[in-house]
């Protein structure tokens, strides 16, 4: 029984397919008790995106990052070049070890009592160590690693549950979508370098410098829903669509759109829309001078991967949500976005832009332009998303005993792009885990 609303967790999501109704109780967006259960059963059990391998390219490179509320840092080992992920807390008394957002280090020293750790987390220096007696064992006083760290094609995830299934199993079919993105980027890199030889660099993509860090006064689940909801695009982003029209780009809506349940709560919508994609669908935003080349890249990708997968990689937008809180939108640019609930009604959001590595400067500049028109807190569209989710939160708080509906297309045999199938997929997994 959830104290706040006197409702069983069991009844908090209603999946009444035969009646055409799917709804969730609005207390799921307002209750501190629900958030407490989410922390234990979702954020501490699922694979959570930490960062990208390209963010720490050289041995000793580190980044400090809060992940689902936990201060962590990740550092590329000086011994093995492997990426280690530690809780950002000294083994001695808990002071923060890593006090810069990023840098390069041979070793990290706690400023409080000057305990020093190497990039493997081993304790290598303790002032006055002879004063420790009994069973003191320096080897047992290293930095504590996050229980599980695994990565797939450059995307690093952590899991605070030592017993968790492996990342690949967890990703299920979402893995294929990471493949589409990275394979497309690899071909773009080869194409712009004018060679069919792959680079010796194992990573074909990199996170750009510059991070979008903002927040919304809304529940974290609303942020997830908004990131892959095609239904809202026309009304919410009318002013963006008008902007495109003003600069010569008519938008007639999604074509050939579908949605897919990718397993384990992950889902995607994909479809064709008139705005461009840097890999590789030209539109007016990219400028006339790049038209021919982008078209050649599109053909190159189709030749390489075949008509079906090639078109999917080059021409189709995809908005993907990897359960619980990783949005990857491969649209007019490629945005990686995570979000975490500080309170039921306040969510911190962090976004990065992922790009093919070593991209030609003029292509990079156009890609950035394409990103900024729509995306991010200063874009022509994302501010409306912030407004939409905050507006929901305000409305929900008016009467937390009401329900929110995700019934669109419940009766469709094949989910359509504007349906709410993707969100139902997410909520079913959420409910399963909350009851587990």
């Amino acid at each position, binding site marked *: 029984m959830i104290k706040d609303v006197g409702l069983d967790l069991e009844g908090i999501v209603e999946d009444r397919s035969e009646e055409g109704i799917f709804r969730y109780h609005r207390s799921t967006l307002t209750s501190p008790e629900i958030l407490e259960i989410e922390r234990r059963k979702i954020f501490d059990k699922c694979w959570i995106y930490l960062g990208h391998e390209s963010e720490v390219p050289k041995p000793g490179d580190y980044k400090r990052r809060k992940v689902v509320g936990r201060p962590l840092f990740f550092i590329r080992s000086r011994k093995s070049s492997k990426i280690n992920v530690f809780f950002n807390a000294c083994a001695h008394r808990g002071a923060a070890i890593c006090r810069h*957002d990023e840098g390069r280090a041979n070793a990290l020293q706690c400023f409080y009592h000057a305990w020093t750790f190497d990039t493997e987390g081993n304790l290598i220096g303790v002032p006055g160590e002879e004063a420790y007696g009994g069973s003191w064992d320096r080897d047992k006083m290293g930095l504590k690693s996050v229980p599980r760290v695994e990565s797939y094609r450059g995307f690093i995830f952590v899991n605070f549950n030592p017993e968790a299934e492996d990342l690949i199993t967890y990703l299920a079919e979402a893995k294929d979508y990471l493949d589409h993105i990275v394979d497309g980027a690899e071909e773009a890199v080869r194409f712009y370098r004018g060679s069919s030889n792959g680079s010796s660099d194992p990573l074909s993509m990199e996170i*750009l*410098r*510059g*991070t*979008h*860090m*903002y*927040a*919304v*006064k809304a529940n974290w689940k609303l942020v997830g829903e908004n990131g892959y909801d095609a239904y809202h695009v026309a009304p*919410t982003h*009318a*002013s*963006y669509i*008008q*902007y495109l029209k*003003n*600069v010569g780009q008519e938008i007639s809506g999604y074509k050939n759109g579908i949605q897919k349940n990718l397993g384990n709560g992950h889902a995607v919508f994909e479809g064709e829309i008139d705005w461009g994609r840097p890999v590789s669908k030209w539109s007016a935003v990219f400028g006339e001078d790049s038209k021919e080349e982008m078209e050649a890249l599109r053909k190159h990708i189709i030749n390489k991967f075949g008509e079906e997968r090639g078109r999917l990689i080059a021409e189709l937008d995809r908005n993907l949500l990897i359960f619980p809180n990783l949005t990857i939108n491969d649209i007019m640019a490629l945005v990686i976005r995570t979000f975490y609930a500080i309170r039921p009604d*306040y969510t*911190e*959001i962090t976004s*990065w*832009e992922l790009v093919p590595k070593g991209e030609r*400067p003029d292509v*990079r*500049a156009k890609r*950035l*332009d394409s*990103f*900024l*028109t729509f995306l*991010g*807190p*200063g874009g*022509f569209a*994302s*501010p*409306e998303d*912030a*407004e*939409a989710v*905050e507006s929901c939160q*305000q409305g929900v708080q008016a009467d937390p005993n009401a329900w929110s509906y995700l019934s669109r297309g419940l009766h469709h045999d094949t989910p359509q792009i504007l349906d709410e199938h993707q969100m139902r997929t997410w909520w079913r997994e959420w409910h399963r885990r909350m009851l587990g």
Partner: protein
Amino acid sequence: MRQVEADKAGRPIESIGRAEVEDFLYTEADLIDRWQLKEWVELYAEDARYFVPTTDLPSADPKNDLVYIHHDYIRIRELARRLLSSKAHREYPYSKVRHLVTNVRLMGIEDDGLHVSANFTVWRFRNEDVDHFVGQYDYWLKLVGGELKIGQKKATLDQITLRPAGAISIVL
């Protein structure tokens, strides 16, 4: 009168003093605060840029790094049009905005024009939102037909993140 205009049209950028620059910056702030955005766009030269780096990378190169805003003149014009359209839902109804511009300094004539630096605090109030943006402006001003115009405006934020703000939906 004609002679005055001719003199004005012919004046060099070196003749611009701090008082005139301050009046110009205060005029811009006032136009934004009063939502006179069509008039605001007229302060910009046709090759202008309006640039806001992210909080974690104030030294960003907008051609190579992710930034918050990097608008050319067309997007500056479109930003104004969008904000006035009633379809920019984050800003309709309009928020209350207040720009405080201080510490104005003329930094010298550079290739891109007269470099001016200033400090700013921008407040935004709407519903329960109380957002603030604090930082430094760098302007590169030039004379077009004798009128001061903004060639470039860069707003560098001091905050570590935008939080608790969810957007830079107004003009900084």
